[in-house]
């Protein structure tokens, strides 16, 4: 029971970060049907910028909360700028090209961003300075740290504000109109280019915060962290139904849970000794574990493939025609 609850807590924390990253994918996909491959790298740049600032400010003795806020405050505008420039330079000229063209461009942008980051920050892993006094609370046998509580709270706030933005403001209405039919939205007086640019900027801003949170949670940041995180978040977006904002939130949290519970239990589940297979290794209470928790990263991909094969429109998505 303890393990279960503990993994649920961990899964919810990681999952809420995935959800925020997934929002970036799903918003862009919803509006221009592009898998923005480079979104993971934006998240990475957010984490790297914030870590640099935080490491600079940590020795000054400012209150830890202020340090982290300043770090995030630097990361968000920089990521927004990155998000805007890649839309403007790489994707906008290809808006009417065949589908594969912007996707291939996005892969290129992702490589470029990753290696620019490598040039700036080198290969070294950046560590988060120990400035936040981590207190541990216990809920029914599961430990939850202050950092985890903060991450959950921030992610929920972000998701709620995004939902308000999209469903309750004129800008949100314009975004949804553009997603439904860009041509007609343009005829109704919506500046499509502006809406798309704003979508990229908001997605990048969310990604920056997610990067800071993810880095803070795991305590490290490196130039390679974007690709795997991005893929997982993309899987989450697909799981919830890509293009669907509540879907991305649901998908992120579910994926976090699947990953955490999967990693927690796969060892026991694939222990052949548990299943009574007579093996030499089992004698004297030994184990013969086929797949251990080191397969954690596989879950996201398995979920992705299963969803696409069984229910390509995702949990909350609507069925779309084969040719868009």
């Amino acid at each position, binding site marked *: 029971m303890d393990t279960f609850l503990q993994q649920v807590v961990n899964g919810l924390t990681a999952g809420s970060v995935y959800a925020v990253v997934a929002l970036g994918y799903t918003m862009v996909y919803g509006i221009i*049907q592009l*898998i923005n491959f480079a979104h993971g790298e934006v998240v990475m740049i957010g984490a790297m910028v914030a870590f640099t600032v935080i490491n600079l400010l940590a020795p000054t003795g400012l209150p830890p909360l202020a340090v982290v806020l300043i770090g995030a405050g630097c990361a968000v505008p920089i990521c927004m700028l990155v998000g805007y420039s890649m839309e403007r330079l*790489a994707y906008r*000229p*290809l808006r*009417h*090209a*065949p*589908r*594969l*063209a*912007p*996707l*291939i*461009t996005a*892969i*290129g*942008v*992702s*490589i*470029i961003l*990753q*290696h*620019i980051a*490598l*040039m700036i920050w080198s290969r070294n892993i950046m560590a988060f300075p120990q400035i936040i006094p981590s207190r541990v609370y216990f809920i029914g046998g599961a430990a939850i740290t202050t950092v985890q509580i903060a991450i959950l709270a921030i992610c929920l706030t972000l998701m709620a504000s995004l939902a308000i933005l999209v469903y309750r403001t004129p800008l949100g209405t314009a975004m949804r109109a553009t997603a439904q039919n860009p041509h007609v939205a343009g005829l109704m007086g919506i500046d499509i280019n502006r809406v798309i640019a704003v979508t990229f900027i908001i997605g990048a801003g969310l990604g920056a915060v997610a990067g800071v949170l993810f880095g803070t949670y795991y305590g490290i940041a490196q130039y390679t962290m974007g*690709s795997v995180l991005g*893929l997982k978040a*993309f*899987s989450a977006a*697909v799981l919830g139904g890509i293009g669907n904002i509540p879907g991305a939130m649901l998908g992120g949290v579910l994926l976090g849970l699947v990953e955490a519970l999967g990693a927690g239990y796969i060892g026991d589940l694939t222990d052949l000794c548990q299943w009574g297979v007579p093996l030499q*290794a089992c004698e004297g209470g030994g184990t*013969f*574990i*086929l*797949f*251990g928790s*080191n*397969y954690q*990263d*596989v879950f*996201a*991909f*398995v979920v*992705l*493939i299963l969803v*696409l*094969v069984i229910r*390509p429109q995702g949990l909350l998505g609507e069925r779309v025609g*084969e*040719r*868009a």
Partner: protein
Amino acid sequence: MRQFFDTRRRPWLVWVGFALVGLSLALLPFALAQVGTTWVRIANYAILYVLLALGLNIVVGFAGLLDLGYIAFYAVGAYTYALLASPQFNLHLPFWVILPIGAAVAAFFGVALGAPTLKLRGDYLAIVTLGFGEIVRIFLNNLSRPVNITNGPQGITGIDPFKLDGFSFGSYQSFLGLELSGPIKYYYLLLAVALGIIVVNLRLQNSRVGRAWEAIREDEVAARAMGIDTRNLKLLAFAMGASFGGVAGGMFSAIQGFISPESFVLVESIMVVSMVVLGGMGNIWGVILGALLLSFVPEILRWTVEPLQQALFGRMLVEPEVIRMLLFGLALVLVMLFRPAGLLPSAVRKRELEEHVA
């Protein structure tokens, strides 16, 4: 001048051209060996990339299925060879037995990937294949426990070179007064395999199967309506592309003598995709050009940028590896922006891409 080279009037010019290209390809390793054996090795890797790019071109260029996990098949071929010809399981089968096995295993993986993803649209397929590639790599990394199969991140060492009745491709030899080092011998072998695969590709392109692939790429629904068995043909594209990757992987294994999951990361898949895209999807000569350019240019940069930086700034500012990767990224972006059909576009692709852009 142009009139003189009109091959319709002077068909023998084609043969002169072939002879010239053949001669220069045959002499190339000796010229490269003058500069250093490293360059022969670089040429060998370039040919391996040509093989990979041609294999991927079947999937991406002919059938229009964007595969971002192609390196997984290379990995499968490489590990098949490594497991059957190394001290890992103390098996030492000859290469002409293993290479077909490797191709078959890779083809099996290709079908295993293709079957569940048949219905997916282009960009979804790209992501699923990417995920598949990562899954294969994670398994290679972790299949060292509880039973040690792949030896995990340490990889497999002591892989046998190609051997034929005491003639080993791995070692130095003097033949008719020619100095034949291991890499030079592999060069000729690779060249022969590459030529074989080029011929297969050329024949495929205009065959019944090749035309069916093209139809699927252009419009799958219409192709099905015309009576094309889209399911089997897509699977065939995956299987054939994968088997080429498997053969290339086996040769990579033998040439290196050592493999580890490090060699089969996502970036490698993207590199092969870049080669195909840069050269021109669907055009065999374009793809070959793309593979050669993206193999040699970074190496040339490596040998020039480093001394240049040392001379200008007194230290290394940007690692050559970083420049190499930036080059790949830029190639993808710039080609898509300015020359979407690639450097040497295939006629059909060019028509379709430019129609859409305009």
